[in-house]
């Protein structure tokens, strides 16, 4: 048992106990009454006696009971508690999982896991920073929330109020939860708590993690010598169903026709019945009853959920359409019962090919289908770039400035601030890479030899899609409000045209640049991602509406041509609108990572970095004893009253 405010109790008792004793020592001034004889009158021994002068302190049951009651009140003021191993003092970091799985309502009274985590965190703060008179925890606490990225909700402080306020502000997200970044952040703060005194290195901070065990990197986190006390929330055997993914693809033979595929997942060892609904732009168009197969394997080891893929009947919709697939009967985790995607509008792409020798590229572009290709061979035609073409292909000749249209530049020194041109190389060959990009949806070339590639040094945000031994070979980025793809060699001087990946590259590159088709839309973001939205250069104000209906206004610097939205805390359709001369809007379907967050089942043992985690069993959890002390005090006073009354009526 620990007394949180012993000094308060000490001062209280120091003041009150002598006062009570004085009441017994001082004689009560009584009215004088002459009687014939006092021999018939009993001594009123139980009476509290007079004020002046002092009298001898007599052994008195009432005094003993009153002293006992006073001591119990003092004990209550001292705030006694039974504590767990994690005590007060020092520095403590509370790591709170706010990932999507924490929204599961499998707690007591259908409370969410996140609410349970907050409740336990509040208890931890009350244990670490008790309130009350003269309360002094002697320690400081930091709160870090764990989502796709970690966020410091409250830096180290000893203020109980600030910590509770920080907890009150927290909300769960639809993102994954990662521990490593939060842990690194906490360690960085804990090892150097005072920015004004960089040399102040203290004891390692205590880590307390509030999670349902669904953090995606628990296995990979190194706890070092600083164990983490885990407060588990949620049930270990909560079943769940989720719409894991939705894909809307236009049919190759009829691009106006959209085919929707959905993948449904059953996170349970038992088969499950479900009704699936497909809605287009918010209007339900199809409902289907399906049976989801049971999952297999051992939870926490090799559990594989039951997966059911559904192909919905195709429908004709040439314009952009929002497709939502949802399970009609919600389960413990509602947020993963729906997934959505956006099918971009179908239409021809206008392509201008600029250069001294455009014939080969014009013919290649025309072979892609749904393209209108024209050749721009004179310098004066540059002025036509912005208005006339969806995509500009630069072949062998460089414009003076970066065109205000998406560009596919081939072996030309494009005036980009993200690239720096160095000496050309004699030849190069690609090295295997893991980068995935819509431009290479068809896959990279298996083997590629290149003659005289450009020497390029990436100085900005350009993403290298194909990399040779000597440098980048294919890059993609966004600049000037438009997408850019650059090929750093002449395909005619490489083996690429003889590889089938060349044509798929051209198709996907044009789609991506023109924002058309599957590769053309924005890469379907996952909740927690930051999305870059290309905008016309005259746009200065963007309004983003979340799936929940909350709006946020983004200011765009003049001429920037893009803005960033996110991290997207909510999964679902986001509507981005902008005004200006080129007003427009864009739908972004943020995907919930249900493949990670949908599994609510949990193994009996939580391992962090391969080491079994120390779980807060709740047995040793801090329990406030002051209410019991108050109750005992009241009971003693009741007994005292009973004794007093009994003496009166006896």
């Amino acid at each position, binding site marked *: 048992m620990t007394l949180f405010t012993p000094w308060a109790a000490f001062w209280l008792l120091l003041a009150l106990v002598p006062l009570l004793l004085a009441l017994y020592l001082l004689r*009560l001034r*009584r*009215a*004088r*009454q*002459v*009687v*014939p*004889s*006092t*021999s*018939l*009158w*009993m*001594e*009123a021994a139980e*009476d509290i*006696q*007079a004020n002046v002068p002092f009298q001898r302190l007599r052994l008195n049951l009432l005094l003993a009971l009153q002293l006992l009651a006073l001591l119990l009140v003092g004990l209550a003021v001292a705030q006694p508690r039974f504590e767990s191993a994690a005590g007060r003092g020092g520095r403590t970091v509370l790591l709170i999982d706010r990932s999507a799985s924490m929204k599961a309502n499998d707690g007591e009274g259908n409370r969410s896991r996140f609410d349970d985590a907050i409740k336990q965190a509040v208890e931890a703060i009350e244990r670490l920073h008790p309130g009350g008179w003269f309360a002094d925890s002697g320690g400081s606490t930091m709160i870090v929330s764990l989502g796709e990225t970690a966020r410091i909700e409250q830096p180290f402080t000893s203020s109980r109020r600030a910590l509770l306020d920080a907890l009150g502000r927290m909300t769960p997200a639809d993102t994954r939860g990662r521990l490593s970044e939060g842990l690194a952040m906490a360690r960085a703060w804990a090892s150097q708590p005072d920015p004004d005194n960089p040399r102040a290195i203290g004891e390692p901070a205590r880590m307390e993690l509030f999670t349902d065990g669904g953090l995606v990197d628990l296995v990979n986190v190194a706890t070092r010598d600083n164990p983490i006390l885990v407060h588990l929330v949620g049930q270990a055997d909560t079943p769940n169903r989720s719409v894991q993914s939705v894909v809307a693809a236009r049919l190759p033979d009829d691009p106006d026709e959209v085919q929707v595929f959905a993948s449904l997942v059953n996170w349970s060892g038992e088969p499950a019945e479900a009704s699936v609904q497909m809605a287009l732009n918010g209007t339900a168009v199809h409902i289907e009853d399906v049976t989801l197969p049971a999952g297999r394997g051992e939870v926490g080891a090799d559990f594989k959920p039951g997966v059911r893929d559904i192909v919905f009947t195709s429908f004709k919709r040439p314009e952009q359409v929002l497709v939502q697939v949802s399970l009609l009967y919600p389960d413990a985790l509602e947020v993963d019962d729906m997934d959505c995607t956006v099918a971009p509008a179908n239409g021809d792409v206008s392509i201008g090919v600029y250069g001294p020798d455009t014939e080969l590229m014009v013919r290649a572009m025309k072979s892609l289908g749904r393209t209108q290709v024209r050749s721009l061979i004179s310098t004066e035609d540059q002025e036509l770039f912005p208005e006339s073409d969806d995509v500009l292909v630069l072949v062998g000749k460089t414009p003076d400035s970066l065109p205000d249209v998406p560009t596919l530049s081939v072996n030309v020194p494009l005036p980009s601030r993200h690239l720096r041109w160095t000496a050309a190389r004699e030849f190069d060959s690609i090295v295997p890479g893991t980068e995935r990009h819509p431009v290479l949806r068809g896959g990279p070339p298996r083997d590629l030899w290149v003659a005289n590639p450009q020497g390029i040094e990436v100085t900005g945000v350009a993403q290298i899609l194909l990399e040779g031994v000597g440098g980048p070979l294919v890059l993609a980025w966004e600049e000037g409000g438009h997408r850019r793809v650059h090929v750093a060699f002449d395909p005619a001087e490489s083996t690429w045209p003889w590889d089938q990946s060349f044509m798929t590259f051209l198709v996907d590159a044009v789609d991506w640049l023109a924002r058309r088709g599957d590769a053309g839309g924005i890469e379907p973001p996952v909740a927690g991602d930051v999305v870059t939205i290309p905008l016309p250069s005259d746009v200065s104000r963007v309004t983003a509406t979340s799936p929940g209906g909350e709006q946020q206004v983004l200011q765009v610097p003049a001429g920037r041509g893009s803005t960033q939205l996110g991290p997207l805390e909510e999964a679902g359709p986001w509507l981005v609108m902008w005004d200006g001369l080129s007003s427009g809007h864009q739908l972004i379907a943020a995907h919930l990572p249900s493949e990670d967050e949908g599994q609510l089942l949990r193994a009996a043992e939580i391992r962090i970095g391969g080491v079994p985690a120390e779980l807060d069993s709740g047995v040793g959890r801090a329990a406030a004893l002051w209410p019991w002390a108050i109750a005992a005090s009241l009971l003693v006073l009741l007994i005292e009253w009973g004794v007093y009354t009994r*003496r*009166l*009526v*006896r």
Partner: protein
Amino acid sequence: MIHGFGQDPAAPPETIEDLLGPQLLAAMEGLELTSKKVLAGKLHGERRSRRRGFSIDFADYRPYVAGDDLRYVDWNVYARLDALFLKLYLDEEDLSVLLLLDATPSMDWGAPSKWNFARRVAMAIGSISLASRHRLSVATWGSHGVTYLRDLRGRSRTAELGRWLLNREVADADGDETFESGTRTIAPTRRGRGIVVVLSDFLGEGDPLPALRLLGGGGDDLHCLQILSPQELDPGACGLAGDLRLEDSEDGTTREVTVTPALLRAYRTRLDERVTLIRDAARRCGGSHLAVPSDSDVESLLLDELRRGGLVR
């Protein structure tokens, strides 16, 4: 101090009429004191004695012996029997009545005052006694010691008795004269035998039996009138309440009490025990005991209570 508690608002008696009013005097007409015992006295009185004497009531014969008074020889018997017999008559003796009044400070308490009530009762009994030509003595004991009024006889001494009673006071001064010590002073000076009436509250501590034996052990008729005020009999009903420091009127000792129903019950129990103790002691001495509230009517006391008790008839 609780205002007025135990204080007699009435003025003390100042004249003999205050002690013995005309109505009471009329009611006492024809009353006389009685004694269960036939007692010898110093003077011939109106009380028949067991001693053979010179009254007109014949008692017995006895043979004549030399020296007998020849005036009492029954010559008719001598004529018939030729032997001298002496006629014996019951002697008529006076009755000695002793009234003992408790003049300790505890008597000067109550509403009505126990002291005033005791003086009125003493005046009434004394008047009856004087009217019956008994030899009356009155004594008080208290803080001022023992005072006497001895050997009054005849109706003409009634006024003297009244004045003497009116002049008696309950002294506030501390004194150590208790019932027992006062009795030890008074008893040896007793002349004759007859009736002893003790008027007291008997609230002093200690066993009253030795003192009562001194008074009743000589063959006197002992009557104990224990006078208690209504405030003593039921202090709760008379307004005694609160946290009090009780001061003994006699020895000044104090006791701190909180008046509660429980305390009042305990007090009543102790008072009853005290009354029982006095009654038992009086009976063991061959006497009687009567507890009398000080607010009683003296006429009713004489005609009813004391008549039933055998003191008057």
